[in-house]
């Protein structure tokens, strides 16, 4: 085994080398785009790493990186969480869920329905839900399938691997490119481009993004998740702005191929078909969700149990600002509840629950006051 493998697999120390990170930040600061630039990332892991390593502290004053709708649990509408709660309360099925979904506040959270006697169990993968169903052949098991392209392919793999007959799925998968397009129609954001999510692109590749970048004159760069990876992506974005060259750079080539993971994409294409889907904060976005194709329709829990999502539940919470935080219109520091009425122990909204939520990242790794753009927190964050 070469040294690089060992480093990548066991420590990834190289892309965290402080001298490398400092040197890249200095290279970034030497650029001069002649105006302020604003890029959005759409990945909860990017926000966590940026916050954890204090990377905003290293950026030049003309460069702003804001968090968008990068947390799949956060963008999942309450009406779809509620399907799991209803199934559990009615005793029709064991509800299998990722851990960060169970505490998301809803009419009743999954943790609350468990407290009322429902059988809600945490699994770490769709495969874990299939194992659970096989171990309990007399019971129905419903897996709440939340996640972007990275997770949709794992649901597809389970659907294709002879799933037990007592397993079904509530599908809340969402696709990233349609959301980027929806964000662009938001005039208040005024984005120069996107730092693209490295693991979504690991599955899906970069092909879908190029037409969007070219048609909208946008700059995009796929970035990995170590501090040097993030700065690598930002350098590519800034250089594209300076050269006025819309398009997509792949800066995470150790994992991202142009066509992504073609096997995973083929699985997804066989099992799912796109459909219009609601997002928390963004409304309904055309072809941004996934439904089972006819061949796999028997795996759909909503038809198996006769459930319909109650979309009237999808109204913004008047106090919680998660909707605006997901859009990048507000930072957690601009939410009156943040760190006071809303903490990881007592979350008020999904952005504080999920480890991928922006509020959870900011609570664990608070930014220094100098990192907060004045207009986005002094007046409560409204722009």
């Amino acid at each position, binding site marked *: 085994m070469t040294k690089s493998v060992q480093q990548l697999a066991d420590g990834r120390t190289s892309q965290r080398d402080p001298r490398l990170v400092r040197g890249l930040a200095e290279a970034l600061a030497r650029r001069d785009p002649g105006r302020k630039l604003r890029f959005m990332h759409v990945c909860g892991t990017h926000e966590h790493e940026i916050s954890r390593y204090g990377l905003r502290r290293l950026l030049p004053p003309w460069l702003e990186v804001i968090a968008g709708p990068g947390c799949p649990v956060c963008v999942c509408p309450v009406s779809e969480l509620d399907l799991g709660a209803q199934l559990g309360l009615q005793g029709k099925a064991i509800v299998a869920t990722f851990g960060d979904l169970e505490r998301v506040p809803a009419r009743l959270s999954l943790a609350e329905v468990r407290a009322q006697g429902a059988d809600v169990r945490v699994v770490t993968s769709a495969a874990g839900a299939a194992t659970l169903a096989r171990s309990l052949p007399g019971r129905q098991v419903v897996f709440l399938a939340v996640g*972007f392209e990275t*997770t949709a392919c794992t649901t597809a793999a389970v659907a294709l691997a002879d799933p037990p007959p007592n397993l079904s799925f509530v599908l809340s998968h969402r696709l990233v490119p349609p959301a980027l397009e929806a964000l662009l129609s938001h005039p208040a954001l005024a984005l120069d481009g996107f730092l693209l999510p490295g693991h979504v692109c690991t599955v899906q590749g970069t092909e879908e993004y190029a037409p969007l970048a070219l048609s909208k004159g946008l700059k995009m760069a796929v970035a990995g998740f170590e501090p040097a990876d993030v700065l690598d992506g930002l350098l590519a974005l800034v250089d594209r702005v300076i050269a006025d060259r819309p398009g997509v750079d792949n800066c995470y080539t150790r994992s991202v191929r142009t066509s992504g993971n073609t096997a995973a994409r083929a699985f997804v294409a066989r099992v799912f078909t796109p459909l219009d889907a609601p997002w928390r904060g963004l409304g309904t976005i055309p072809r941004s969700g996934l439904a089972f194709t006819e061949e796999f329709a028997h795996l759909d829990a909503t038809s198996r149990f006769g459930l319909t999502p109650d979309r009237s539940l999808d109204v913004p919470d008047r106090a919680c600002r998660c909707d605006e935080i997901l859009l990048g219109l507000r930072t957690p520091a601009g939410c009156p509840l943040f760190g006071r009425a809303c903490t990881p122990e007592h979350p008020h909204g999904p952005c504080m629950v999920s480890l991928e939520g922006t509020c959870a990242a900011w609570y664990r790794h608070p930014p220094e006051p100098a990192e907060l753009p004045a207009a986005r927190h002094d007046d409560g964050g409204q722009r």
Partner: protein
Amino acid sequence: MCLAIPMRLVSREGNKGIAEVGGVRTEVRLDLVEVEVGQSLIVHAGFAIQVLDEDDASERLELLRQIAGLVDEASP
């Protein structure tokens, strides 16, 4: 939930394998990749979603070291 991490494959049997990072071993599904024992994987939600290109990782790192002005100090 969406957190993906690089791990090394230490053994496999059919579409299941054992992957390791920092001394922690976990079962991973290999349905989505073609991989050999000893290679590094990106593991997400219990599934390997890609095999890491180790040569590429070294090349990119070297490029970044150049941009960061560390090349003179770079010694094996």
